[in-house]
């Protein structure tokens, strides 16, 4: 099962390597990762999506993260009310005759085309995982040439 974990850390060099090292040393993968400074520039906010087969592994991950000296707070959003979002950019095959079909898909999903090139369009969408999945399903018919995802960020309710 995938879990969203947020980590407040000291904004210093090497901190991300310590966190990544915990996962790599145990052979756990990080599904997504987003890092940025907070209002307090000495603190960074990390949002991670991790794969954990059971509660025990998730517990260990959280405890091990907390054990790192530079980690300030670890929050597990799994059972906590939260909102999460991800930004995606997709390049899809496009020609002007597809315009209305593409617009239909985009409008339904709340996405937009930020660039229309000769043979492709660049689509932007921000949303939760279900919305994004729905959009990607709709875009398949045009051919998705490239897809870039920001990784999820989350905030508690």
């Amino acid at each position, binding site marked *: 099962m995938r879990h969203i974990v947020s980590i407040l*850390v*000291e904004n210093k*060099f*090497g901190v991300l*390597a*310590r966190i990544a*090292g915990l996962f790599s*040393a145990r052979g756990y993968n990080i599904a997504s990762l987003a890092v940025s400074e907070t209002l307090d520039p000495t603190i960074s906010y990390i949002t991670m999506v991790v794969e954990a087969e059971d509660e*025990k592994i998730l*517990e*260990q991950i959280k*405890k*091990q993260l*907390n*054990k790192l*000296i*530079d*980690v*300030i707070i670890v929050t597990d959003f799994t059972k906590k009310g939260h909102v999460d979002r991800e930004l995606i950019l997709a390049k899809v095959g496009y020609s002007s005759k597809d315009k209305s079909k593409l617009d239909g898909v985009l409008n339904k999903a709340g996405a937009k085309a930020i660039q229309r090139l000769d043979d492709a369009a660049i689509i932007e969408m921000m949303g939760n995982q279900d919305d994004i999945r729905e959009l990607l399903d709709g875009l398949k018919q045009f051919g998705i040439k490239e897809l870039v995802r920001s990784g999820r960020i989350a905030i508690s309710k």
Partner: protein
Amino acid sequence: MKLTGAKILIEALKKEGVEVMFGYPGGQVLPIFDALYDADIRFILTRHEQGAAHAADGYSRATGKVGVCIATSGPGATNLTTGIANAYMDSIPMIAITGQVKSSLIGNDAFQEADVTGITRPITKHNYLVKDVLDLARTIREAFYIASSGRPGPVLIDIPSDIQQQETVFIWPEEIEIRSYKPTSFGHPGQIKKAAKLIASAKKPLIYAGGGVITSEAHHELRKLTEKLNAPITWTLMGIGCFPATHKLSLGMLGMHGTAYANHAIMEADLILAVGARFDDRVTGRLDKFAPYAKIIHIDIDPTSISKNVKVDIPIVGDAKNVLGQLIENINNLPDTSEWLKTIESWKKKYPLKYQDKKDIIKPQYVVEQIYEATKGNAIITTEVGQNQMWAAQWYKYDYPRTFISSGGLGTMGFGFPAAMGTKVGKPDSIVFDIAGDGSIQMNIQELATCVCNKINVKVAILNNGYLGMVRQWQELFYKKRYSYTTLTSPDFVKLAESYGAIGIRVTKKEDVRRAIEKAISIDNVVFIDFKVEGEENVFPMVPAGEALNRMIEGLA
């Protein structure tokens, strides 16, 4: 007044009460060594950086103080890493200082450059690369605080050579506050109450103590609680000395080479009170068969140790000394253990620790027993790793904490001799014996020079069986006696000791064992005793890896 980074380091170490350092110089620590030249700190030049790390580690285990070692960049630092990993696995407070190439060259594949903070990240509690001389004093203060508090461990400080040379005003931060690091000290009162209640209702309680008791100096509290509950107690390899082995409630060590009665007790207990122990695989044996009838209370300073391997019913995070104190106060109703103790007494009679002594051959266990007798149990014993370590654990009775010094978690061959050196430096009035094997002793034998030059008069008892004994034992039991590369040719240890200016004694007859030990103790020099012992003696009892604890191989005797 402005000081160089190197001088600031020395001043800071003195502020931290450092009396001795172990290490080796090199290009990128020249400024530090220049400052050490007339500093008020004893410096011991080892013959290999690994020796320095193990010596600092041994010093720390023997004294409870923070051990300090230093090496240059690149190969100096990488040579420390085994010693750092060793200290990390056994939660030993240690500071490792390494020189780094100058800041402008970092990342350029400069001469003797290695990414030392990168290499040591998974084997240190924390590490620092100092990039500004202004940060140096605070970094050292933090490093000592982190190394010695909570669950202790090694902290490495990597200092580029230009930072060692830059000057600034030395400001020592008396108070230290790390917002992201707040170890829990006392147990949660609610958990303590629950634990007290569970203990009162137990019929077959067993205390299982580990190295955390020694780290937190909780041996008095542990003894008080054990006697109050009138409960049997067993301990891990790291816990040896946390409770008197000669006490009637003692079951000795448990686990793979633990006593049969300790292992039977854990399999039959209805309550296990674990204190400062981490349910290591060498202790639990097969996990799904471990302690099938027991509720478990687990006291540990490190939350990651709790419910990592074994599911715990009542976790109590906190310092062992404090939590045991809290428990003693809160336990009003005591369990009736009389029947349980009778059962245990019958196991002690039925399955004693034993070996088959012989007249004409020296048994390694006999040597250890004789060291115990000759020193009246007052020596500090360090060990290498393998059979020598297990015999030293089984056949010497340790009544005091910090008298058994051994590489537990990492299992580092070559640890015992430099650790003995560090121990003797920290405890100059104690008799220090390294119980070694002919394999392990050769892994850091260069430290003979360090011991002789500095008059660090440790005694080394080599249980010389001509094999890498523990691996040979596994080959005998599980690989059809195919002794693949475990027979060992060794140098003449007597001549070798003599060539370094130490004393060598060879013992080939059983009747000479005791006399040789007594002679070694009386000689005011480093002494190697080469005991020619039974070649294919095995360590028993033994729980084969992956078996339940009560599935022991008892041996022949």
